């Protein structure tokens, strides 16, 4: 018994502070949030009653939530994740060919991630301004200057159902460099011997990539999808700083914040937060299950 404690005791003591912090600040508050979502708490004074799933049921007939927030976040996630993956992948592919100054390119593409979403949003709000004539600025002015004035867009202020997809542009600008570095690390992880073996067998470069490198990038791609999707679902600051209270770019995260802290609907806000957590869980839980299974096989 003593020997056993000596074996894992020091390790436990080392991780204990973060374990306690995690238990309180992550799982404790998670539980508290779910508890609040089952109460009728509205206004500054907490209510500790129990109303079952009433707040959740109300959300499913809440026009803002069902007709705007959920479709909006689905469109945003789709465009943002697919776009960042594609751009990050292409950039990794180009850098993997062995460009001069690779380090410089890698840093330049990664830098946008270091800028907070608030700052990114303030720059891109100007870049994607929809003014015309004398007040035309940003991307629209650039397009007009290049003789492509016909491409003038209202971006996130567009009347289209897809207006929120414009926000995937700054989000993708922020994170595609990160996806690039993930893919690049994955490509570098493929042993050169494997490629050479394929070449000796007479495979062309595209075929080497398709049959040797691509299958080995699958785990990288999985983690990239999981990271991007959960960032997408919980993004708040980017939309908030871009055009707050524009319902065309409203998402569950924004609705949660406004209804809780402007309106004092604490129980409803907690219900939205719990649904967001479930949304993130549907992406992350299968991923964890998959990685645990892969690790066991080894």
């Amino acid at each position, binding site marked *: 018994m003593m020997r056993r404690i000596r074996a894992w005791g020091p390790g436990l003591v080392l991780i204990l502070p973060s374990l306690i912090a995690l238990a309180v600040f992550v799982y404790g508050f998670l539980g508290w949030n779910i508890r609040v979502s089952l109460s009728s708490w*509205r*206004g500054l004074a907490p209510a500790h009653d129990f109303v079952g799933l009433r707040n959740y049921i109300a959300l499913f007939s809440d*026009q*803002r939530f069902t*007709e*705007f927030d959920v479709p909006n976040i689905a469109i945003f996630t789709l465009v943002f994740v697919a776009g960042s993956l594609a751009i990050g992948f292409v950039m990794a592919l180009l850098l993997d060919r062995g460009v001069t100054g690779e380090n410089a390119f890698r840093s330049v593409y990664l830098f946008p991630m270091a800028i907070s979403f608030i700052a990114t949003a303030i720059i891109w709000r100007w870049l994607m301004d*929809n003014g015309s*004539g*004398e*007040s035309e600025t940003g991307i629209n002015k650039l397009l007009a200057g290049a003789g492509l004035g016909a491409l003038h867009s*209202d971006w996130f*202020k*567009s*009347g289209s159902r897809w207006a929120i997809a414009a926000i995937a542009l700054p989000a993708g600008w922020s994170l595609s460099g990160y996806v690039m570095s993930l893919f690049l690390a994955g490509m570098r992880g493929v042993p050169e011997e494997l490629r050479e073996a394929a070449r000796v067998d007479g495979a062309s470069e595209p075929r080497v990539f398709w049959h040797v490198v691509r299958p080995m990038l699958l785990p990288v791609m999985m983690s990239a999808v999981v990271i991007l999707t959960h960032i997408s679902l919980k993004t708040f600051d980017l939309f908030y700083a871009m*055009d*707050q*209270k*524009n*319902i*065309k770019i*409203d998402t569950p995260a924004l609705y949660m914040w*406004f*209804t809780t802290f*402007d*309106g*004092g*609907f604490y129980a409803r806000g907690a219900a939205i937060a719990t649904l967001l957590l479930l949304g993130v869980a549907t992406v992350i839980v299968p991923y964890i299950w998959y990685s645990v299974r892969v690790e066991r096989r080894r």
Partner: protein
Amino acid sequence: MLLGELGPDKYTGLWTGKTDWKSAEVTAALDTFNKVLAASDIKSSAADWQPAADRVIDGAAVYTVMGDWLDGYLGRAKKLTFKTDYDVAASPGSSGVYDFLSDSFTLPIGAKHRAAAEKWLTECGSVQGQDLFNPQKGSIPARTDADKAKYQNYLATALKDWQDPATKIVGSLTHGVVANNAFGSEIDTALGIFVQKRDPAAFGAAIAKAYADTK
């Protein structure tokens, strides 16, 4: 729009439960609002009031419906002259009505420096404090003994309207005078949906429900 179309008494009734949000008059007023929206830049419906005022300054927009503080922006920040560079008019149907809001400081129970806070509040409320603050911000004092000479140009007309016994006073929704935070935020949501969907009946029904739920 509701104030102009319904008149001050029925408008005030919207907040006290006496005017039915689902009534024919409210729906008709919202139909008129729809016509105004058709001539507005609703793509920027979530924009702040200053960029909207800038468009009027640039000559890209004809007018903007805004409060007294716009005078502070135009007269002080933008150095424009009342009557020569800009002018005002009561929005349709609101002549003789003052839609008011007030800036307030709260003194919390158990404030640590109660004496100092009370001194600050006394200063703010004094004739001198009012006359220092208001002309800078673009607002008028509630006190009747303030120095009228300090309120020039537009503010002189606003002060005259405010002190006119015939003026009817109603409260501003945007600034929380007539609706509590919960009701106000539900109205924000319904208005955002209305600007997209343009359905007066659905808007009226949503507000009526929100009023009942947040009373």
